[in-house]
């Protein structure tokens, strides 16, 4: 299904409305009643992409990453099911490991904590469903308490485990999560740039807006180029959904966010260093999002490893598939 530009703007506006009006806890219900779930069926790239970008830009939290993973693995979207992401350890892709008496779960939960009674975990053999009762949750404040991150731990007996996907489903789920995170990072970076452009137009030094200095312009132009490329990369990853495009999109988005953090911070001068100014909140959110499901640095190596071992350079996206 193709959505044209006007319709896209409408979807964006209505999602923004839902995001800003709802508390994190009942966001899922609000999304369901807004028709987002139908949109997810009809056009997942738009449903997930727009929601991720909007919440990244507004620093909000929704179950979009969980939904993206479940959707990519062809699992039912159920408000009572969330995902335990792998822990932030190197490029660890598993949130559950087989142990003597069952499965040891160790990972991170995003907005799903509190609403879910079952969790999908990633394991070597595929995707498993575990009951919430078998896990303990500890809030992770860390750099960004607003993300609602929790650490999930526990040993779940094999009898309580249901296998819900094979290795391919796990790879698809992780790719889906990476596409959503990439969208969120692009949204955050875009908001940083927009705020910074407004600032350099309004801030005057030496009798002129600092945005008229070429040194400032070129830093922000580079940020714009990086964000535009990342946004195109995310769209390409949706057109051609596979593990490599998802990794590449998340890398481009993570790097764009880093570049925006650096250059936008710099041209703000001292003010962005203060907590009174909100700029630091986007930096912290971006750093955490970049950490989830593999940092840009780690995924860059992962892509290189894949290309060298397959001795092939994928030519994606194909011409003519773009929306």
């Amino acid at each position, binding site marked *: 299904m193709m959505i044209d530009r006007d319709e896209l703007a409408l979807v964006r506006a209505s999602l923004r409305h839902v995001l800003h009006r709802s508390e994190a806890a009942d966001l899922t219900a609000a999304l369901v009643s807004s*028709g987002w779930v139908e949109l997810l069926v009809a056009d997942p790239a738009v449903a997930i992409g727009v929601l991720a970008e909007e919440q990244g830009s507004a620093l909000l939290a929704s179950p979009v990453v969980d939904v993206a993973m479940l959707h990519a693995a062809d699992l039912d979207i159920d408000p009572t099911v969330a995902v335990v992401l792998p822990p932030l350890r190197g490029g660890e892709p598993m949130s559950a490991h087989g142990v003597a008496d069952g499965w040891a779960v160790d990972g991170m939960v995003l907005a799903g904590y509190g609403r879910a009674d079952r969790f999908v975990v990633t394991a070597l053999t595929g995707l498993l469903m575990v009951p919430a009762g078998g896990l303990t949750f500890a809030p992770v404040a860390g750099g960004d308490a607003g993300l609602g991150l929790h650490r999930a731990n526990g040993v779940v007996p094999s009898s309580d485990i249901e296998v819900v996907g094979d290795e391919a489903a796990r790879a698809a789920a992780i790719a889906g999560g990476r596409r959503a995170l990439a969208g969120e990072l692009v949204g955050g970076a875009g908001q940083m740039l927009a705020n910074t452009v407004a600032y350099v137009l309004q801030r005057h030094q030496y009798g002129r807006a600092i945005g008229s200095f070429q040194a400032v312009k070129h830093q922000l132009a580079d940020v714009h180029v990086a964000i535009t490329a990342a946004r195109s990369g995310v769209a390409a990853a949706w057109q051609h959904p596979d593990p490599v495009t998802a990794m*590449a999109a998340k890398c481009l988005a993570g790097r764009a966010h880093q570049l925006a953090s650096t250059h936008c911070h710099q041209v703000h001068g001292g003010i962005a260093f203060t907590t009174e100014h909100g700029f630091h909140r986007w930096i912290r959110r971006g750093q955490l999002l970049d950490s989830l499901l593999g940092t840009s640095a780690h995924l860059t190596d992962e892509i*290189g490893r894949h*290309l060298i071992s397959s001795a092939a350079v994928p030519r994606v996206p*194909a011409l003519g598939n773009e929306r």
Partner: protein
Amino acid sequence: MTWNQLFRDRWVGSDRPAIVTADFTWTGDELARRAGGAAAWLDGLGFERGSFVPLLMDESAEAIALAVGATLSGRIPAPLGTKMPAADLAVALRGLDARVVIAEERLADLACQAASLAAATVAVPGALPVGPIMCIDVDEDSPALVIHTSGTTGAPKAIIPSHRQLVARVGVYSATLPLGAADRYCSASPFAHTAGITMTYTVLGLGAAVIPQDWFSIDKWREAGRLGMTCGLLVPTMIDMLLEADALADAHPRFLQYGAAPIHPDTLAAALRALPDTQFVQIFGQTEVSPISCLSHQDHLLALDGRLDLLRTVGRVVPGAELRVENPDGNGIGELAIRSPHTFAADADGWRRTGDFGRVDDDGFITLHGRTNDRIIRGGENIYPVEVEQSLIGHPGIREVAVVGIPDRRWGEIVKAVVVPEDSDEPPPIAELQQYVRDRIARFKIPAVVEFAAELPRNASGKVMRRELRATDQQPDPSAFLEQTALAFRAWLAAHDAELSVHRSECLGDLPEALLADRPIMQRLWDGGWMRLGWPVDVGGLGGSTAHRAVVMDALATEGYAVPAFYGPVEIIAPMLIRYAPHLAITHVAASARGDEVWCQGFSEPDAGSDLGSLRTRAVEVEGGFVITGQKMWSSNGQVAQWCCLLARTGEPGSGYRGLTMFWVDMHAAGVSVVPTRCESGRAETAEIFLDGVFVPTTHLIGPLGGGWSVVMYLLQFERGAYAWERQADLHGQLQSLVAHPTLPTNAVSLVGEAYLSLFALRSQAAPTLMTLAGGTDLGPEISVDKLLMSAAERKIADVARQLLWPALELDDTDEAVLWRRRWAYSRITTIYGGAAEVQRDLVAERLLGLPRVR
């Protein structure tokens, strides 16, 4: 048993009529000798045994003789749809690996267009001579003919029955439609369709004569009647037409065979009244297997006797075939699958999945529920269009109806009905139609959208083209044909590998040598039709869009070929000529795209680089033209170019960008001298051009006098847009050679990863940009983003190569090391040519971010 044997038994030496036309009758023996003459003619054209013989012909005695002659001499005739567009024909021709296409004279133009796209030539048969009978023995499993599916969706697909399968089909028909020596058969179906040539072969196999018919019309029906037709093949809409013209009874066949669509009870009743002695037989089949089922004359009589429901069925499965319903739902509806010796194309397990949903009742009657592709899924519920159509068709205000699914954000798909009203001036109210079906079908199946139309779009074989009905609400998918182009091109490339593979390696010599080395492949790409794609017909192209050439170039690089040096300048300069100087484009575009002519740009000057508006080369108007004096530099290919698009000042000095005009300058004209500029890449990449009173005729103005700035801006979007796509195609190839390198250092993974990210970013950005250009929309300032990503990727790949191939790249004089040193050096200029990176960043900041412009 082969069809050749069958033909020999029935016809060789027979003096019974085999082909009957208004002008002549051929006996069986004469047909055999005409076929022998055709075979001899095919010998002369170089058609080998086992090769495909494409026939772009409507049905005629000659066309039948050619097809039969091909089959009897061990070749495989392939009639092609004479109403297909050239591009689709070309795809079919490439699939047949055809070097020659045989066309009747009337269709020679179409054949030439298709042939040029498929690197084939055209042969037009004159009067076919009578020749010695040739009827060779072939293997039962060897192919007998090719039929292309009529394709209500997508491109035609070749179906190739073997002799064994064809003979089995003759056997099935002898039970279903018992024709014999006394019969004369006439099909209203196009020759290329399975109901055309395959029926002709079947009928000849049964020993009955054929009345060839090139195209259906009411007059031709009457003519067939006069020629003694005893069995006719029509589709129900034709029956309607004949009834309306009161012409159905102008022929009196024993049998009337119809198919493609169910018949309306009123049509049947009227037809039976008009032809009381004719037996009506409905055949349900498809190119891959036919007949699948048959509604016999007996069934038709039962229908008129009150069992009207039988007319909604397609009868019972034919003898000798097994039919099953796969994965039936609660109502017993599932995909129909058939297994039988007369199936032309079966899956690996021997069953042919028909792509039709259907149900079989206790008496064995089959009801169709639409194509599996046509199933509408609304909010997870299955809806079969046929059910909705049948619930509507009973309404007195409706003549015809087709139901399709259209995309809907809330439901995924919703039901749309396209209605042909009985009275177009007073169509029934939509609400009334919706009310009418409310009692007959589940609520969720009620059409949410109802549109009225004068008629339903049908393809040549009478099937409703549902895709067109949906298309009113959908953009066509531009990628479909692009993918086909790429696939067809790669197949062509593989077939010409021996000849072309020398072009896989980049020429290490200087520029003139490199261009010379690339000429043969440019020529082959043009003559093969590939580089003619996307250029307007006026300039020698084949129409289509830039995107078609772009996928060809990408596929060329995918196969390991270097992008020819001609390609870039043509892609950048030709669009400007086509738009602003069409009279020049007519002769020059083809010349350069074919590798016969080199072009360069004359824009930069010693004092005007990025600041193009300050250039000083003067053009002074004289009688009949202009005299140009000045100096240009950084002209890539300048030292070898025959023509230069040159920007000069026609306004007052200091008139800035307003006083500029673009000229088409002959580099061999008096007063032009060129000095190559040696570069760190080891080649003379560019040149300085000195102009000393060079006369340029008025006809060589590109665009209006004083309009040079718009012209160069138009050109630059191709230099920044289309060129970026070409570069990514080549750069993917460069990285490909690096990742396949036998020895890589330990830090290679992160370097390769970095390099790929720069390419993924470039390609993701360049693809939509190219589609925008291909759609004919001018690009805005956004194109600066593509330009910056392109130069970043160029530099990244070269930098990574230096690290990966260290120290060999620094020390060795191998071809590989020399090439990479050259590429690395060249990559340094990519942030400078076509508008320096600093200028691009200014444009991004000012035009896209809205930051203040201060100079």
